[in-house]
């Protein structure tokens, strides 16, 4: 199953009426629906985290779940990220399927040992005998005026670690389908939600669906330029693509959806087709996700590229509080457009 129209998902708010069998919901609702449907299907699924029950987590993404599933399955924890992530690992190793909520992606710093040295390695170290079907749901993204310790996008770290899978949904449709896949996966999965996107609306089908990992989605087709964008940056890329269209530049926007596994093939094919590539991601640029994707494309499409692959990540600075500074740290449609114009010889 796929979206009725790839680009309509991204620009759903403009669609006057949802097509037959599709509904418009927010990304936050998509997450909640995925959790609720999966929890109905499989009693082994538990949620754990800070303020996940009555409070429904600070972004209200989990509202209603404790009412439906009870406090035995939606569990408020102390402020102990390492501890309850470890508990998630132990649950997962012994027949349960926990979904752990790390309120802000920045707090992953506290749970790194449990995620990286334990969850990621148990299956391998045990020679394939033990499994860790654990989902860690968390956030990324800046511009919420939350300053340096509540604004980071640390997904590159996890993409670097074998044994982990990393998911970066950019639409309600993707969020719902990918979260279901994450929950059914037998491996530890890091699921990053952009906190600025919870209100983003988009279409999802009525019935059940899942989206496989490792399959990039072409959010918009184009022929002059490929923009590879992740999570929050997909909307930025689409906005840039719309502007570029005015300038007669046809941009293809590709969302890898999972950085691990990474659908190298689709990225390379697109690069071969357009010969020009920009990679946009909200993590710090240096040693971030844009580096891997750029390296993969530079190698895989080497003989087809007309210009170097350009990268646009967050500025390499701690995220400042002041709005006038913070807004300078995150890639914008304007910055993508500028880069695209230069790349296409229009600057």
């Amino acid at each position: 199953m796929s979206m009725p129209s790839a680009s309509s998902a991204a620009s759903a708010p403009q669609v006057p009426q949802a097509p037959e069998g599709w509904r418009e919901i927010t990304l936050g609702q998509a997450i909640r629906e995925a959790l609720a449907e999966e929890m109905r299907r499989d009693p082994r699924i538990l949620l754990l985290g800070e303020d996940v029950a009555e409070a429904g987590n600070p972004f209200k993404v989990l509202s209603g779940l404790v009412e439906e599933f009870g406090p035995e399955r939606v569990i408020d924890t102390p402020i102990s990220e390492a501890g309850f992530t470890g508990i998630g690992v132990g649950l997962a190793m012994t027949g349960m399927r926990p979904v752990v909520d790390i309120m802000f992606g920045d707090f992953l710093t506290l749970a790194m040992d449990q995620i990286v040295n334990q969850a990621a390695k148990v299956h391998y170290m045990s020679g394939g005998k033990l499994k860790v079907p654990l989902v860690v749901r968390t956030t990324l993204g800046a511009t919420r005026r939350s300053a340096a310790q509540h604004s980071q996008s640390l997904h590159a770290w996890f993409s670097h670690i074998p044994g982990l899978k990393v998911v970066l949904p950019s639409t309600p449709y993707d969020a719902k389908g990918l979260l279901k896949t994450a929950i059914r996966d037998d491996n530890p999965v890091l699921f990053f939600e952009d906190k600025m996107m919870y209100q983003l609306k988009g279409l999802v089908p009525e019935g059940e669906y899942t989206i496989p990992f490792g399959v990039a989605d072409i959010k918009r087709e184009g022929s002059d330029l490929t923009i590879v964008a992740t999570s929050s940056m997909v909307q930025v890329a689409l906005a840039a693509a719309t502007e570029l269209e005015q300038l007669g530049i046809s941009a293809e926007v590709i969302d890898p959806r999972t950085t691990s596994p990474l659908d190298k093939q689709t990225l390379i094919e697109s690069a071969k087709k357009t010969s020009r590539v920009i990679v946009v991601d909200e993590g710090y640029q240096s040693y971030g996700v844009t580096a891997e994707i750029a390296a993969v494309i530079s190698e895989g499409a080497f003989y087809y590229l007309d210009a170097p692959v350009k990268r646009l990540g967050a500025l390499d600075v701690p995220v400042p509080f002041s709005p006038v500074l913070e807004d300078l740290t995150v890639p914008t449609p304007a910055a993508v457009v500028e880069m695209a114009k230069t790349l296409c010889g229009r600057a």
Partner: protein
Amino acid sequence: MVSEHLTSSEGRPLALDEASRARERQFWLSLYEQMLTIRLFEEQVNELYMSAKMPGLAHLYSGEEAVAVGVCAALRRDDYITSTHRGHGHCLAKGAAVDRMFAELLGKQPGYCRGKGGSMHIADQESGNLGANAIVGGSAGIATGAALSCKRRGSGQVVVCFFGDGALGQGLLYEAMNMAALWQLPVIYVCENNLYNEYTPNRETTAGDMLARPRAFGIHTEEVDGQDVRAVYAAAVRLVERARRGEGPAYLQCNTYRFYGHHVGDIQRSYYRSREEEEWWKAQRDPLKLLGSWLREQGLAEDSHFAEIERRVRAMIEAGVRFALEAPYPDPQEVAQHVYA
């Protein structure tokens, strides 16, 4: 500030000569003024949020003023504190100025952190504030390290580590307390127990006996009514002197309550705490009212004193807000400054 002040908690007026009475009056009124400054500062913060003039959120300290003020009154200016997401009170009590704090909250260039830190990261080296921390429990190690530094440098400084009851969930705190006890460091862990971790009552997050925890690590532990600034001050003086004498770390639990929501946007609170509970604390346990009543009962202060203080504080707050609203934003090029020293 570490003079001896009478702290008899009964209503009975103290028998003092005039000079002592004047000193008493001056001291307690100065604490009253600091608490009022925090209270009115926070009112303005809420106002700035409601009128969409402040970016982001803020965690108000209203209701807990006696803790910061009582503890910091026992400190020297060169003593250190570390603070939390709910840090405005600590900042002010340790000596930060209202105008530069407002400027920071608005992301303006004259702010304490040039607008880069915001509400959750105000630091002010000059007044010994090593910074608020938006990671719950995140400064336990920093405070302990600062205490080791004081000890190694033989500076006679002490360190106060403020944190909320929620930080008891963080393992780092126990790691740090263990080392503070082993090495007999001059650090005082001040737990502001306001009964909630965000939206979850701490009885659901905190097993066993809170005070037994620091004790188990060999740390001298006390508990105090965090709404009674005289009690907080007395305990802080004791523990600070102990630490300064080289007798090692202490843990002070201050039982308190936040009058507002977890942050300025937390308006619907009934699912986690009742309006009655809130009303009771505000009516019966307001640290300003408690100190005010005592001062009146003692005949140490009367209406005119309080009115004068309120006028002064309001004027300062107003001037501070105006300063901040009119202050410039940082220059765009500052975004890449201060990444490295």
